[in-house]
């Protein structure tokens, strides 16, 4: 194992692309804006120059055709990655994702998998309003036959993309522009982060905080604040939304007896709702207090900065929720 270096999240994604494309001739990338850093940030800079524009395909404005073509190419044995620079626009391609890719293995008796990766990027904030801001993981979590991963660290940004491409099933890899500058230790070689395994990012005894993606650093920040007030929070980074790691979550709740779930999506039928229901069903005896969800309200994303500040989940909302649960005063 080589010495890990420090890379940021975007550079780690870029390195995964580079290694996948070098290692496997079946891998190609298609989507809008792939030749322009304006669309995909620094996560794919000059990849087209290195691997050629035949393999890094910046496409017509056709989410449905590009995503469907990727599904078809995967059925023919390729390993395509479809990039949607904003998750919102991926809704124009729901048929190939939900009706086709997700159902394919089952519809044809497991005769053929669809080794396609959908990479929608969550790109929100900055007064972009309701159609440039959505975090739609729960919508796709509902669908059988899809796997969903949401890396929170530079290490997993690389390892989960490699795992997704090699999985053999349709995997949605959801990265987040708010994390692109996050630094982390990233090994140089090609490695996979196992899909379906959570990571305990901070051990603690009073409460379990489950989070994913950009809410993991926010939960860790909240845990720091809580520690200064004598509360010991355990922070779990889900990494995979589906399948999610029940054993790690239940084990932690078994130790702490309290559960706060933070998710960057809406409240109703959300990721947090699913985890809460499962814990209530399968680990009820471990609970010493009601489960708490920290999510977006059931409201579209606003524009004005004042409204955005009130809307998006952050460390303070998580810390406040934990404090309320434990009956101690909030930070502010």
């Amino acid at each position, binding site marked *: 194992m080589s010495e890990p270096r420090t890379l940021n999240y975007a550079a780690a994604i870029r390195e995964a692309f580079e290694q996948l494309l070098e290692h496997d001739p079946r891998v190609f990338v298609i989507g809008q804006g792939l030749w322009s850093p304006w669309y995909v940030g620094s996560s794919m800079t000059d990849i087209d120059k290195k691997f050629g524009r035949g393999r890094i395909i910046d496409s017509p404005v056709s989410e449905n*055709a590009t995503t*469907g073509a990727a599904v078809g190419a995967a059925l023919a044995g390729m390993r395509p990655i479809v990039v949607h620079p904003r998750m919102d626009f991926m809704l124009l391609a729901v*048929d190939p994702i939900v009706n086709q890719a997700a159902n394919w293995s089952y519809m044809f008796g497991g005769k053929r998998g669809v080794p396609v990766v959908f990479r929608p990027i969550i790109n929100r904030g900055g007064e972009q309003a309701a159609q440039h801001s959505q975090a739609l993981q729960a919508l796709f979590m509902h669908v059988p036959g899809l796997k969903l991963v949401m890396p929170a660290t530079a290490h997993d940004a690389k390892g989960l993309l490699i795992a997704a491409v090699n999985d053999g*099933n349709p995997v949605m890899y959801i990265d987040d522009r708010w994390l692109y500058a996050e630094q982390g230790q990233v090994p140089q070689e090609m490695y996979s982060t196992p899909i379906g395994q959570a990571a305990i990012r901070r051990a603690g005894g009073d409460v379990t905080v489950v989070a994913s993606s950009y809410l993991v650093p926010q939960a860790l920040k909240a845990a720091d604040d809580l520690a200064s007030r004598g509360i010991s929070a355990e922070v779990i980074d889900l990494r995979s939304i589906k399948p999610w790691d029940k054993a790690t979550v239940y084990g932690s709740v078994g130790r702490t007896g309290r559960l706060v779930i933070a998710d960057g999506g809406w409240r109703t039928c959300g990721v947090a709702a699913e985890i809460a229901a499962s814990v209530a069903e399968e680990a009820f005896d471990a609970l010493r207090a009601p489960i708490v969800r920290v999510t977006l309200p059931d409201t579209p994303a606003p524009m004005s900065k004042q409204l955005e500040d009130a809307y998006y989940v952050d460390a303070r909302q998580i810390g406040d929720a934990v404090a309320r649960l434990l009956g101690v005063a909030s930070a502010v």
Partner: protein
Amino acid sequence: MNTSELRDLYRTMVRIRIAEERIADLVEAGQVKCPCHLYIGQEAVAAGVCAALTKDDYVWGGHRSHGHYLAKGGALDPMMAEIFGKSTGCSDGRGGSMHLYAAEVGILGTVPLVAATIPLAVGTALASKLRADGRVSVAFFGDGATEEGHFHESMNMAAVYSLPVVFVCENNFYASHMGLMERRRADNIAKSADAHGMAGEAVDGNDIQAMVASAERAVSRARTGGGPTLIEARTFRWRGHVGPAWDMDVGVKRKDELKEWLPRDPVARARTLLVEAGVDAAALDAVVAKETAAVDAAVEFARRSPSPSADELNRHVFV
């Protein structure tokens, strides 16, 4: 086209016709329950196009795909077993009539979402271009599919990348219950090719020789790097949108049109050509007898096969 080639095409069309008529009877008798969209009347389209393909070429279809499956060389037994929902079916009893699979002859799955396999065909063609494997992909779809965004996005993308794909629109003049001219201002599907910058032609889909000639032009263009083609094959389905009813289901009366189309029966026309070429009628009857026996055997195979067991309900969600 020589007589031997024509006789092969006749055999394929007879096989489709007899299988479909049998399935119609089985549905009517309540022995087959899943929705079956019959191909009777359109046989020359599938037979003609698939005759221009090799075994490795990809073929994509929709809800009405028994004909595509059989014409491409898919085996009768697993298709019939699938329609019966048996575990020996081509999709392990998970798919039925609308989900046929025969990867060994380039059928990676047919699905009923209208137009859904058009972008998938563009995808297999893109894979072929990236791998330079020389394969051609064919997307079969109905006239209704040309009203979906899938169709136009896919046509544009195939043209932009000059992909080896042939779009075959089987214009049978009805999308379920809605007539073509209730859904568009002009009867001009083939002209979509111009708009998307590719070759296109309309052809009599009930004339097997015209179908083969048209498909050969398109497949040869695709195979030699000339890019995609749109073929509008003008034809008519004899039965209703779904199931065995002749001229009326979902409240549509089509009797007058059917009267015009029945004499253009593609199977009978091929038979006439063979007889005119000097083929003995007894030899043609023997083809019918042989295909009937094969369909009988497939139905028997399906009936004898086990159903999937309930304890494997959740199997195959992932590979």
